[in-house]
């Protein structure tokens, strides 16, 4: 749960009063043009960027007051957060499993290697993998601790359509069968429509629109979600209530 989140850099408000909640088994899409404040919001939820004000609770635990305990309940994968390329797939999973305090780690790693079809790559260094394979490893790492909140910042960027489809299926499966929810950012509107239960449109650090990605375009007189995205990026004022 995020309530009235602000992040200011001097006079610039990168995030300006953002509030939202990610429900159990829900995939929430965080959309917006570059510089809208999506990654800033995700970084604050990850605890690597301190909010100027506002409250972040993960699984009911206040991030500011109990950073470690809150972060035990989350995990993430981002296109800009590659795992150490000089460690093998197994070594990366083992180290992050220890960091997240995963119980029965060896069994959990075995399950994830199987689930993400990574067994044959177990002893290959992460830096030697293809983009698709790296994404699978990053997602396996992100699911190590079965997080209450899974943060995914453009997880399918630079993937071919077939691999991206497989990855989306894995994430949907995680959201459906697990205890947690997913906060997902993407610039691929087809993907967002396919995967997200609900979306938030961010512009200039504020939430501009919120709703079902399949119904939202029509509600605002647009044909597709992509048209709506373009409108948010170019004419945000016309869409404000």
């Amino acid at each position, binding site marked *: 749960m995020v309530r009235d989140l602000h992040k200011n*850099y001097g006079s610039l408000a990168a995030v300006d009063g953002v509030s939202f909640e990610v429900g159990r088994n829900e995939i929430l899409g965080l959309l917006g043009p570059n510089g809208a404040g999506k*990654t*800033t919001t995700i*970084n604050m939820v*990850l*605890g*690597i*960027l*301190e909010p100027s004000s506002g409250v972040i609770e993960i699984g009911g635990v206040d991030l500011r007051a109990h*950073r*470690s*305990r809150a*972060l*035990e309940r989350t995990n*993430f994968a*981002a296109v*800009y*957060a*590659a*795992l*150490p*390329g*000089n*460690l*093998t797939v197994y*070594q990366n999973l*083992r*180290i*992050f499993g*220890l*960091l*997240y*305090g995963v119980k029965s780690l060896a069994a959990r790693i075995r399950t994830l290697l199987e689930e993400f079809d990574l067994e044959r790559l177990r002893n290959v260094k992460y830096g030697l993998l293809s983009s698709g394979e790296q994404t699978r490893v990053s997602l396996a790492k992100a699911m190590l601790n079965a997080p209450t909140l899974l943060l995914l910042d453009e997880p399918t960027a630079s993937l071919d359509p077939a691999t991206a489809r497989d990855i989306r299926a894995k994430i949907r499966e995680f959201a459906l069968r697990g205890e947690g929810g997913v906060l997902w950012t993407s610039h691929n509107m087809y993907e967002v429509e396919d995967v997200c239960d609900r979306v938030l449109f961010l512009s200039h650090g504020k939430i501009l629109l919120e709703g079902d990605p399949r119904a939202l375009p029509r509600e605002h007189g647009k044909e597709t979600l992509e048209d709506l995205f373009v409108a948010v990026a170019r004419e945000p004022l016309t869409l404000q209530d």
Partner: protein
Amino acid sequence: MHSNRTAAIVLRQLYLLGGSPARVVPLFAWVAIDIVLWGFITRYLNSVAASGFNFVPAILGAVLLWDFMVRVMQGITTTFFEDVWTRNFLNFFGTPLTISEYVLGLVLSSIATSSVGLVVMLVLASAAFGLHFLAYGLMLVPFLLVLFLFGIALGITGCAIVLRLGPVAEWFIWPIPALLSPFAGVFYPLSTLPQWMRYLSRLLPASYVFEGMRAVVSSRTMPGDQLFWGFGLAVLYIVLAGRFFAYIFHHAVRNGLIARYSAESVS
């Protein structure tokens, strides 16, 4: 504090060492070269000195102790640099890992790596050049302890500087031991130095160790309070270094530098 998170930092370093001769060789190669070089220099000095003074424990022993301190410092900074080189801060600090767990992981990694260098130096110095550590008696333990603690303080301070200034600041860190060595009196008594340098020397825990070592070698009694001062200063510097690192880290979290670390955006 969770031991499994600290263990993760140490394990990462062990994995890297296990798979990389380029990381293992420097653990002992440079210190071995130093011991060989200074071993021959002291042997030569013994042959030309008329006084009959034995330079081996005074000079070669000093090199060994100094190199040990440098290896402790570099053990910490090198483990930290692994995260700099792989842009791993976002991955590590987005986990439940706390600053104290991370820094303890760096220290434990350093103990593992600096021990390798120490053992190699001890074996080489005693086997090839007849350096007998019994000459220092029980004082060897506090000597090593003070240098170990000071090496940790220097290492943590170095990490904080690089965290603040960005990856390129690594080049400020490597020369720190060379910068301190004239003041530490590794090879000569502090009385050799001009007064202004002696004031600075008194702030370095290492200077008390080397003064003490020379006193022991010359069969003089080493004043106990001197070593106590060295120990006290080393502990104080560790506390200050830890606070400095925590301050820099919180500054980086406030300003988003952890997420944009490679930008080297000093602000």
